[in-house]
């Protein structure tokens, strides 16, 4: 008859097992947070970060900037989203913290409003001048045609006069 012999686990193994189980406890909260459907995803963060620029590295959008500083700013966006801040509130916060230059769309205050006014005005002025230029070119073209028609009889008259003179001389 076979008898199974069970050996007791050494005390050190038991102690290690307990320590391992205890060490899992602090991470339970983190896993729960990330599995929360309301926890902002990277896409949620980047949707706002793409509307901001890195305050340090010029002309680099925050969502594609790879520096440590930019990573911290993206985490700041995530923190604010967790706190329930709206997109506008977060952008305003960044503007207050780091200046208007971090906004992809400058606010229409001070001289910034010129950015919104001048390009459409220049485009409109260009369109008007182009239109007027086109009209005047067409008119000049028509006038040239008329002048050409009027000049033909004169050339014919001169030719006839010359022909007659030569015939007379003969």
């Amino acid at each position, binding site marked *: 008859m076979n008898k199974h012999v069970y050996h007791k686990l050494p005390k050190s193994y038991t102690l290690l097992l307990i320590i391992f189980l205890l060490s899992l406890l602090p991470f339970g909260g983190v896993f729960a947070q990330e599995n929360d459907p309301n926890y902002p995803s990277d896409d949620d963060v980047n949707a706002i970060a793409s509307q901001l620029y890195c305050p340090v590295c010029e002309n680099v959008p925050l969502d594609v900037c790879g520096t440590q*500083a930019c990573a911290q700013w993206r985490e700041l966006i995530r923190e604010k989203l967790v706190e329930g801040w709206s997109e506008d509130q977060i952008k305003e916060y960044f503007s207050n*913290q780091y200046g208007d230059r971090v906004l992809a769309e400058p606010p229409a205050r001070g001289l910034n409003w010129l950015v919104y006014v001048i390009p459409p005005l220049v485009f409109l*002025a260009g369109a008007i001048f182009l239109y007027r230029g086109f009209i*005047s070119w067409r*008119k000049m073209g028509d006038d040239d045609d008329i002048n050409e028609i009027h000049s033909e009889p004169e050339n014919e008259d001169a030719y006839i006069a010359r022909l007659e003179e030569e015939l007379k001389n003969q």
Partner: protein
Amino acid sequence: MVEDQNVTEQNLTEEKSGPKWGRIFAWGGLLALMLLVGLGLVRAQRPIVEVGSPAPEFVLTTFDDQQIDSKDLLGKVVVLNFWASWCKPCEQEAADLESAWQYYQPNGDVVFLGLAWTDTPTESAKYLDKFNISYPNGPDLGTRISQAFNRNMGVPETYIIDQDGTLHFVKIGPFISLQEITGIIDPLLP
């Protein structure tokens, strides 16, 4: 006949170059745009505050919500240090700056102020804890203070202002040692 011809020529000229109001608008707009661009270029190339000139005035709101006005600091030497938690060179001088502050604090004639430049509040707090920095620190909101000192600001940068409010010394980059800091400040003290 001649008058008619002149009027016709005038009309033709006007049609070719556009009405008067249009030309005025176009040239006026172009001049205004050039003026704006010129002003922007001049502004961008404006020299940074030079040593020997009055230091810009500023108001710093610390992380403890304490307001510090530079005008209230006249009569004292002010050490204004710009830093960021993501700045590795800043870490090199953090301990020396704190040591210098501890050295001068008993006499009360030198003030150290730290400005977190384009940093996040969370990381700034960690940085201050990491290096046990005890002198007043606050965020450079909107980078307004740094822009007043240097349009091409980087970190770390330190501006030392004498008792009259005149910029005495500018350090671009980290201090190498405590002795370097005291070597600059000591000559200013009575």
